[in-house]
C-alpha cells in the first residue's frame, strides 16, 4: 500500500472537489502528471499545477488477466477497465469505474474520484453525473 504522503502528492481538494496535482513548465506549454521538477520537453523547472477534474475518455481497455504483485487490488482478482482521460493540456492514465468493464467509449465524459470505495487507489475516473458533455 502506498504511503499517505505519496497519495497526498497526487490529489488535492479545492472547494470540496478533488483534483489531481501535476506540474506546469515555467518556460514552455507543457503540463505533466504526477509532479516533476524538470520539464520533459525543454528541461526547464516546473511548478505545481492543479489539473482539471473532468475530461473525456481518450482510450480504454480491460485488464482481464490477474495482475502480479505489487498490485494491491481485490483478491481474488476482478477484471477492471483502465484508460487515458484527456484533460486538455495532457492525458492521464487511470482506472475507470462506473460501467461494466467493457462498457466504455472513446469521447465519453468522465470525472475524477477518490476515496474509500477503492482504498488501494489514489484516484480513478467515473462517468460524469449527467452524462456526455
Amino acid at each position: 500500500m502506498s504511503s499517505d504522503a505519496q497519495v497526498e502528492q497526487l490529489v488535492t481538494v479545492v472547494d470540496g472537489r478533488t483534483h489531481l496535482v501535476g506540474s506546469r513548465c515555467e518556460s514552455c506549454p507543457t503540463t505533466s502528471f504526477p509532479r516533476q521538477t524538470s520539464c520533459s520537453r525543454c528541461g526547464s523547472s516546473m511548478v505545481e499545477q492543479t489539473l482539471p477534474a473532468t475530461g473525456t475518455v481518450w482510450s480504454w481497455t480491460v485488464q482481464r488477466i490477474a495482475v502480479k504483485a505489487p498490485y494491491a487490488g481485490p483478491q481474488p482478482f476482478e477484471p477492471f477497465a483502465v484508460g487515458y482521460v484527456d484533460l486538455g493540456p495532457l492525458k492521464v492514465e487511470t482506472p475507470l469505474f462506473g460501467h461494466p468493464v467493457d462498457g466504455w467509449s472513446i469521447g465519453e465524459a468522465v470525472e475524477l474520484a477518490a476515496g474509500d470505495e477503492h482504498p488501494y487507489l489514489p484516484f480513478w475516473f467515473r462517468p460524469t453525473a449527467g452524462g456526455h458533455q
Partner: protein
Amino acid sequence: MSVSIVGVGMHPFGRFPISGRQMGLIAAREALADAGLTWGDVQFAAGGSRDGGHADALVSELGLTGVPFVSVYNGCATGGSALLAATHAIESGAADVAMAIGFDKHERGSFASNPAEYGLQPWYAEAGMMVTTQFFALKLQRYLHQYDLDQRLLAELIAKSLRNGSITPHAWRRNALSVDEIASGTMVNDPLTKFMFCSPSEGGAAIVVTSTKRAKQLTDRSVELRAVEFRTRRFGTFEVFSPWLAEQITDGATVHAATAAFQSAGVGPSDIDVAQLQDTEAGAELMHLAECGFCEHGAQGELIERGDLEIGGALPVNTDGGCIANGEPIGASGLRQVIECTLQLQGRAGDRQVPGEPRTAFTQVYGAPGLSTCTVLAR
C-alpha cells in the same frame, strides 16, 4: 565506409534445455563458419542479453583473444544496438571484421517490471497499471478508433505470421490457426486476444560484418548493410508505463529511424522487396507498417486484404513468422530480423523463400521505452 554481412548464425527460438549463453555460442560459431572466418579474425564484437548472462563473458568459450567486446542493452531493440556498434566499428576503420551477438533465456509469462527502474512511484504498480499488455491495448484501441480500422485485421495479421512460422524450421510456434480461432481466443486486454501477443522465449543470433571490400574477397553472396539507424523517442510520443501523455501525440522513434534509414540507403519504402517489422503483438505490426512508410495510416486494410504482406505478395512482411511465431528472446530478436532478410536476399530461405530474387530488404525493431533501429539491406 560501406559495410556488408558475410556470415549469419542462429540457434532456433523456443524453449530448450541449454543455457542462453550456450545458444549464443552456437549462433556465434555458426555465423563464423558461414563467413569462413574464425573468432581470431574478429576485431570488434558487441552483444546483448537481458536474462541470459553477460554477453562479453562469451569470450571465455570463444577464445581469449583480447578482442574489444561491448555489452549492450536496449530492451527489445538490443540486437539492433549490437549491430549498430559492430557497423560503426567497421565504418570508422577501427575493425575490418566485427560481430554482433544476441541471446536470451526468459522465464515464462510476461516480463515483470519494477516501477523504480522507470522512475515511477509504487502507487502506479499497486493500482494495476504497470502492465505492458495494457499499454499495447491502449495504444492500439486509440489507433483503431482514430483511423477507423476493423479489429479483424489483427487476427488476419496473426494468421499470416503463424502460417509463415509453420514453414520456418527455427520458429517456435509451428501450428497455423484460422482467423476465427485467433479472433475468438480468450481476451487478454481488449481488443487483443491471447493469440495476438508474442511470448518471451529463448534463442541466439549472430552476424559477422566486414567492409564491403573485404566481403567481396570472402564470398560471392555478401549482403550490403546500406543503412543502420537508431533513434530514441522525442517529446510527445506514446510509450509504455506513461502516467501521462502530452496534449499533442507525436511520431514515435520508428518514424524517425525508418526515415533516416531510407535516406541513408538512398531508397524508399516502395523499393523494398521483403521486410521484418517488430510484432510484439498484432497492433505493433499494424502500426509499424504505416510508421515505416509502407502505407498511409489507416490504409493497412488494403495491404492485408490484397495479400501484399504474404510470401509471394508485393511486400512480404515477417516471412519467418516474426516475434509472434518465434517468441522474443530480447537480446537476439532484432538480429533474427536481419538474418531473415539476409537469407531471403541470398535465396537461402527454403520453403519460405520470397520468389523473384528479392534485392532490397528492411528491418525495424522497437523497444521500451521508445527506441527503434531500422536497417536497409541490399544484394
